[in-house]
């Protein structure tokens, strides 16, 4: 599905801080990451560790203090690569923004060129949204919005797809569909990077697990809490917390 000549994007030396002078806070510290087509990386890290910030830098949405991007064809500064990143790296919000109008209209915004109608219909079918095609997109559930965003990504066919906490606020059924859709992206050669603070999500999809700690990436083997049934709280003494 992806016909881009690039199959990998290497980022090196990403540094990002917020604030000025005394209030300056280093969020990402000289970090390297490589995104390869067909692979799915899980990015874990505590709240506030900088996962969203990193994802937004990778997709060209916010400017890092420094970074170098290598596509295998050329080596670029973030500024030079910004256009490429905007085109090839797609960032999906935790709750994707839906424009006023039907689901179909929201998909239409992601299509250009011929056969728009057929392509939209195929995207609806792919994301199991056919019954929602004419629904007001702003009124969808969180899981359905996420699927609309995935269908948009499917239409855009970016090289890299970045997902920010895609399955928080999702029930098991929605999560299952989402995982299926992510698997389908992987198969077609898209590189996936999923930010989540729960390593138990996405074990069906994930190839490797990186953890963001103090602005640096630590390679962690995937460890699963397989002896815990899905819906039981790991903290039996603190039932009802959330």
């Amino acid at each position, binding site marked *: 599905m992806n016909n881009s000549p690039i199959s990998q994007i290497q980022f090196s030396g990403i540094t990002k801080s917020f604030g000025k002078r005394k209030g300056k806070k280093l969020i990402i510290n000289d970090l390297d990451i490589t995104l390869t087509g067909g692979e799915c990386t899980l990015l874990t890290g505590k709240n506030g560790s900088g996962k969203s910030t990193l994802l937004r830098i990778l997709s060209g949405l916010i400017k890092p203090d420094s970074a170098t991007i290598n596509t295998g064809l050329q080596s670029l500064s973030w500024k030079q690569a910004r256009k490429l990143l905007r085109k090839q790296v797609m960032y999906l919000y935790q709750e*994707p923004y839906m424009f006023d109008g039907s689901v179909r209209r929201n998909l239409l915004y*992601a299509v250009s060129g011929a056969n728009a109608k057929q392509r939209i219909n195929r995207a609806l079918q792919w994301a199991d949204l056919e019954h929602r095609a004419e629904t007001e997109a702003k009124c969808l559930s969180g899981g359905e919005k996420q699927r609309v965003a995935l269908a*948009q990504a499917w239409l855009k066919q970016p090289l890299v797809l970045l997902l920010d906490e895609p399955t928080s606020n999702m029930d098991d059924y929605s999560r299952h569909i989402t995982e299926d859709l992510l698997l389908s992206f992987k198969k077609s050669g898209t590189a996936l990077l999923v930010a989540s603070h729960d390593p138990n999500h996405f074990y069906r999809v994930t190839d490797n697990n990186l953890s963001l700690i103090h602005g640096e990436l630590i390679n962690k083997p995937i460890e699963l809490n397989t002896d815990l049934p899905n819906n039981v709280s790991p903290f039996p003494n603190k039932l009802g917390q959330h």
Partner: protein
Amino acid sequence: MESLDATIWKAITLLFSGDKELWNIIGISFQISTSAILLALLPAVLLGFVLAYAHFPGRRFLISVFNTLLAVPAVVVGLTLYILLSRQGPLGEWKLLFTQTAMILGQITLSFPILVAMSHSAFQSAEIRAWDTARTLAGSPIRSFFIIMREVRFGLLSALLAAYGRIIAEVGASMMLGGNILHYTRNIPTAIALETSKGDFAQGIALGIILVSMAFLLTITLQTIQGRGALAHE
């Protein structure tokens, strides 16, 4: 002076008898205000858009400039343009004073800040997420711009109607810049002012009825739009 009933009756007769002079004045009013709005609209909306989404030094300052301009009285706008356009003024060679063009310039100046300020807040009402999403989905910035324009269309229409409401009923600048010349620069508000000063209330009331109906229509439309807008964002 005639009795009030008689005057009102005369006014209504004037309106519905298709009095040529009266309808000529009404026509001039709408023609001038519509030209002014059409000329101001695109640059003002673009500026509102840039002020909402682009970050550049001086952005905040520009926003406060336009908010201040909102409060500048029409007579001051009229006076400023009068000085610029008068024979001894820097733009005197253009010989625009007491022409429709001068009135259009005046009304553009009056409507521009409203259009900028209101379209700025319309664009701001859409989250930055909306703009980022539009940029991600649509290939070109122009297409993204149209997606966002559609997203905030109710706010933009409100801006248009509010600006139109201000200039169609404005006396000060029109009087000073147009000179109230019959069949040329006499519009509804300047005609009302003149006829009233002459003690001829019937024409004034007839024109007043047009303005009030206009205002009523604009308000109703605005309310409907804002209601629809609110619903669409629930």
